[in-house]
């Protein structure tokens, strides 16, 4: 373990750490930290560029053998997550021009980066906790509603349960395979003994809890609704991405066989169906996105049925498309003094007449999330189901696709509100600020690239 290897291979993490330190120092030195947002954006962008550079340079290294590893795919995973964090930061100017939001978010990002590189269950656990704990606070801050506290507590308790389940699973894994390395999960997957099976189920359940797969989803709609828009966007996209990347690391290229197929197919399928059905009944945008993201978590876990080698690629590609589009919807959402008002779907009525550009962006995002071609969401979904069919689970794939069909309606409803309804009576929305529009333009550019040239991404992951 030499110093250069550590400093280069962990460059993105180091940059984030530097950013956190800088933000804290800034907070101590000056009470009113106007510079917090620029600093955070600079450091996160730098970290993203560093990760991308590591990926393109094909850098491989294991600064802490057996704990932390860096390969091009993991570097690209980090680059993706960090790049997605930039629009979230830009969006937050409205709600959190200053304060604790930025160091918390960067800490959480550090956790996500750790997840991508984790090589053992210990590092993975550290990453998961580092990712989650700041988010409990993010749900609370900047949003003065009594429900926020309740939702944050709910999330804390359930997330804590997930951590406990994960730890228990990891220790059982250690008991049955004698190693804490991620590879032992693959061994446990194929082992017939009860201890190993229990371990696998506990670890998978922990992932399901964190990713809000039904029946572990109860916290998600409340937490999403209680948090402010940037926090919700962060949870819906980046936390989900972190959990899925962690799951993809744990599963590695292990082949999923019976009886685990049932666990990995039925619960995600139920999530797809129920998430889509429940989303139809939501009056608020954020609850709708919450249920929709439950369904999307279902699609993502479907990727694990697919063949091992293409799994990481499918998950990352899906996260890229899903993340970009979800953030686009959040960023283009017209600002409103009253956060509860801002959230009401009814208030989107007639948006096209007042803010055509925002309406077009949100419309695109909705169609993409619905998986309608030619938007990137379709290509990502295609890749996942292609892998599932190639792995021989045709029936599950068809069921999953039909489940995804159920979701089309509520995405269309948003478009219907924006384009086909007369303007809402109480629409006092100011247009989004330039900086939020900047965020949506970043997402738009990303999504166009994903849709037109998917090969660029596919070749990398």
């Amino acid at each position, binding site marked *: 373990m030499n110093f250069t290897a550590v400093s280069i291979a962990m460059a993105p993490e180091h940059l984030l750490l530097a950013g956190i330190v800088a933000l804290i120092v800034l907070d101590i030195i000056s009470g009113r930290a106007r510079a917090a947002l620029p600093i955070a954006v600079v450091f996160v962008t730098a970290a993203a560029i560093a990760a991308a550079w590591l990926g393109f340079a094909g850098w491989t290294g294991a600064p802490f053998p057996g704990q932390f590893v860096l390969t091009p795919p993991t570097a690209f995973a980090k680059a993706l997550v960090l790049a997605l964090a930039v629009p979230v930061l830009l969006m937050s100017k409205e709600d959190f021009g200053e304060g604790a939001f930025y160091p918390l978010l960067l800490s959480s990002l550090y956790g996500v980066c750790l997840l991508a590189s984790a090589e053992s269950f210990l590092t993975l656990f550290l990453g998961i906790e580092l990712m989650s704990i700041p988010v409990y606070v993010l749900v609370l801050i900047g949003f003065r509603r009594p429900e926020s506290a309740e939702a944050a507590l709910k999330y804390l308790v359930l997330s804590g349960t997930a951590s406990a389940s994960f730890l228990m699973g990891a220790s059982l894994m250690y008991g049955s395979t004698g190693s804490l390395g991620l590879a032992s999960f693959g061994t446990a997957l194929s082992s017939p003994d009860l201890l190993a099976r229990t371990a696998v189920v506990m670890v998978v359940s922990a992932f399901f809890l964190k990713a809000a797969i039904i029946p572990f989803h109860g916290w998600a709609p409340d937490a999403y609704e209680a948090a402010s828009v940037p926090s919700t966007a962060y949870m819906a996209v980046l936390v989900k991405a972190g959990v899925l990347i962690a799951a993809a690391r744990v599963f590695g290229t292990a082949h999923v066989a019976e009886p685990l197929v049932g666990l990995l197919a039925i619960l995600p399928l139920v999530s797809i169906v129920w998430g889509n059905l429940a989303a139809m009944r939501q009056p608020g945008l954020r609850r709708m996105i919450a249920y929709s993201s439950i369904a999307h978590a279902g699609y993502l876990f479907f990727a694990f049925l697919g063949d091992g080698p293409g799994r990481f690629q499918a998950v990352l590609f899906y996260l890229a498309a899903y993340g970009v589009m979800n953030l686009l919807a959040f960023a283009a959402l017209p600002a409103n003094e009253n956060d509860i008002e801002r959230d009401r779907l009814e208030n989107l009525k007639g948006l096209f007449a007042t803010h055509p550009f925002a309406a077009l962006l949100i419309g695109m995002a909705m169609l993409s999330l619905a998986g309608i071609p030619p938007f990137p969401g379709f290509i990502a979904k295609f890749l996942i189901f292609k892998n599932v*069919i*190639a792995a021989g689970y045709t029936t599950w*794939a068809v069921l999953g696709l039909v489940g995804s069909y159920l979701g089309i*309606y509520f995405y269309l409803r948003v478009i*219907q509100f924006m*384009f086909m309804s007369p303007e809402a009576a109480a629409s006092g929305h100011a247009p989004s600020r330039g900086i939020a529009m900047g965020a949506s333009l970043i997402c738009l550019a990303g999504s166009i690239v994903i849709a037109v040239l998917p*090969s660029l991404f*596919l070749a990398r992951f």
Partner: protein
Amino acid sequence: MADSTILTLVLYLPVAGMLAIAALPAGRDGLVRTFTLSVMVVQFALSIILYAHFDPAVPGLQAATSVAWIPAWGVSYLIGLDGYNILLVMLTTFLGPLVTAGAFSAITKEVKLFYAMVFLIQFAMLGTFVAQDLFLFYLFWEAMLIPMFLIIGIWGGERRIYATLKFFLYTAFGSILMLAAVIYLVYSLWTTTGITSFAFADLYKARLPLEAQQWLLAAFAISFAIKVPMVPFHTWLPDAHVEAPTAGSVILAGVLLKMGTYGFMKLGFPLFPDATRLATPLLSTLAVVSIVYGACLALVQKDIKKIIAYSSISHLGYVMLGLVSLDLLGIQGAVMQMVSHGLVAGGLFLMVGMIYERCHTRELAAYGGLAKVLPVYSVFFLILTLASVGLPTTSGFTGEFLVLMGAFAAGWRESAGGSSYALWVAGIAVAGVVLGALYMLWFAQRFLFGAERVPHGPVADLNLRERSILVILVAAVFWLGLFPDSAMKRTELAARAYQELVATPRTPMATKVTGPVPAEAAR
């Protein structure tokens, strides 16, 4: 040989037009209209060049462009003209300017968005017809939903939201099944031949066991049958038509429905020949049920738009009948019928729009004796009605006649094998012709003759713009009726290819070649 640059131009002109419209200043509606019309006219002019240069003696693709797009999945950007699609491309570009001009006075709100959507749907439809790669085809096929969803939903009538959601959800359901089938098919091609490719030409080589073929055909067929629409999947159509603005109806009847029949001809049947031959009795029965049932429904409608909507179901039944007859004339007749129906139904919907703009009602009972009041209108209406009935010298006759010939030929072929079922089917289809004449003529009689009843009258007869649209349209109807040869020549090789593809067994048992297909077999 047609030129690939021109094809690319024809395909992407609408996109350029859409972007240009977005850049035009708001509130300049007149400018937007003129601009759209000129782009559409240029597009049609370019496609005439394509048509003229299309060499009927060359099999396979012409004006092809092929670029590797997502090599990891075997997806390529592959577009080209063949005898299957040349006429449909012509039909699409021909109707473009007419739809545009027809909507000048009807569309007054969100004009920019409207013409942007017309451009977009034009692009998606053309793309669907010229795509020669299944992934690309699917992208275009689905992309067409979005502009249509907006066209019906924003500029439609009273129950437009319901109608447009119904249209979208119906069609999307078929597409989802098709998607699963597409993935499975490509995967099977890979496992049986080692080729990873979405190109049609490669997929025709896939060897699938009969059971898999049947499942896949069912998935494709449901998707296409919804689009055509065949009975029993037709219930979205009347709603969509009645609520859609005139332009939407014309696009829907004129081109969109043809995407379904085109899909059957280019993909559904040739990809799964063994399953198709097995399902022929079922398919021809459904086609005839569509013919007769559509006609019966058209007979009893009180809304003039609905009459034409149901007549579409009936007329597209003939197309399906021609396709499953597997007889050369029948297949060519089916293509002819597709084009003819596009012209005639499109024209009729335009005319319904014209009268609706004047009288603001689609209630048939409210009208009567228009021939005295609106002589020019009535002449055109009568011509189109007769074309719809299939009067000789009009395009309707060519298509219908050939399809019935094909159906009878198939019937005799079958009866030589001892089954007279197909003959019965052909016989009932002929009865459908009589029914078709009945409802259309009865409609014209109530509409144009009898006691004078003009709601919100007196109204002015057609203006110059409307007359020009109809003159051009009627000229095309007669041209196809009197000189079908030019079009028939161009479809002949494709029809033969289709015939051969569907007639050749392709289960693994019936193999001539196993394992990887040799290079010389790959066209």
